[in-house]
């Protein structure tokens, strides 16, 4: 099996790049490949534990009916999925980017690193994909 490193840069709720990246992580894990995710800049808010669901007056939906999909839940689901399959998934945030945004409170399993860690992930990978923001 291969090891893949994926860099994400877009913040949550702003870009189709985000679900695309999550879909690729999901697909790689399903095939048994190890995945390193490095979140840079706005993407470090993806795992922010303070994300909250809300009702949606325009949809006429309650919190339960809307079931708003916060990306922190997607990260938790992917980490749980990887553990269940016994496939390695590292979800690492750029620490300074976290501090800038005040999103230190992250869901369990998300770690903190630097561009040097991202470089080490790349060096240890068979494939690298950076999804930069526009």
């Amino acid at each position, binding site marked *: 099996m291969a090891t893949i490193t994926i860099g994400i840069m877009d913040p949550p*709720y*702003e870009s189709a790049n*985000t*679900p695309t990246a999550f*879909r690729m992580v999901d697909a790689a894990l399903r095939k048994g490949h190890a995945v390193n995710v490095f979140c840079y800049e706005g993407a470090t808010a993806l795992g922010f534990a303070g994300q909250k669901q809300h009702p949606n007056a325009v949809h006429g939906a309650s919190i339960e009916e809307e079931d708003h*999909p916060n990306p922190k839940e997607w990260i938790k*689901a992917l980490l*749980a999925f990887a553990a*269940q399959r016994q496939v390695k998934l590292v979800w690492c945030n750029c620490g300074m980017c976290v501090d800038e945004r005040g999103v230190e409170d992250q869901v369990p399993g998300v770690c903190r690193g630097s561009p040097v860690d991202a470089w080490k992930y790349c060096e240890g990978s068979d494939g690298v994909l950076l999804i930069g923001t526009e």
Partner: protein
Amino acid sequence: MGRYLSIIDSAGRATIEEQDDTALWFTHAMKNGGAEVAVLLRADAVNYAVLNQDARGLRFGARAVKGPDMVRDVKAVLAKGIPLYAVVEDLAERGIASSQLIPGIEQIPRSGIARLVEGHDRILTW
């Protein structure tokens, strides 16, 4: 009270996370608050006019993601009395036939955009 026109260019920007298009949602919320609004879909956003969209089936690990229902949202905009226009040439360039559109959407030529803009006091470009 001013007349507002929301011009939406990009489609699918964050619709999975938001479960809707944020520009269309914002415009609908303005209408609910009493504003006089209209919507123009152009460029990739004309895809929102298609009747048989289906974004269901997404799943991350064991977690299913409900996803947006753009047909519901576009129909709700029309039901609210918000005029909704789509650019004919942008539909044609994407191979979208008139028969595929959600009923009630008015098609206008690209050459008609300037006149539509002139008919409104405030333009919100998304």
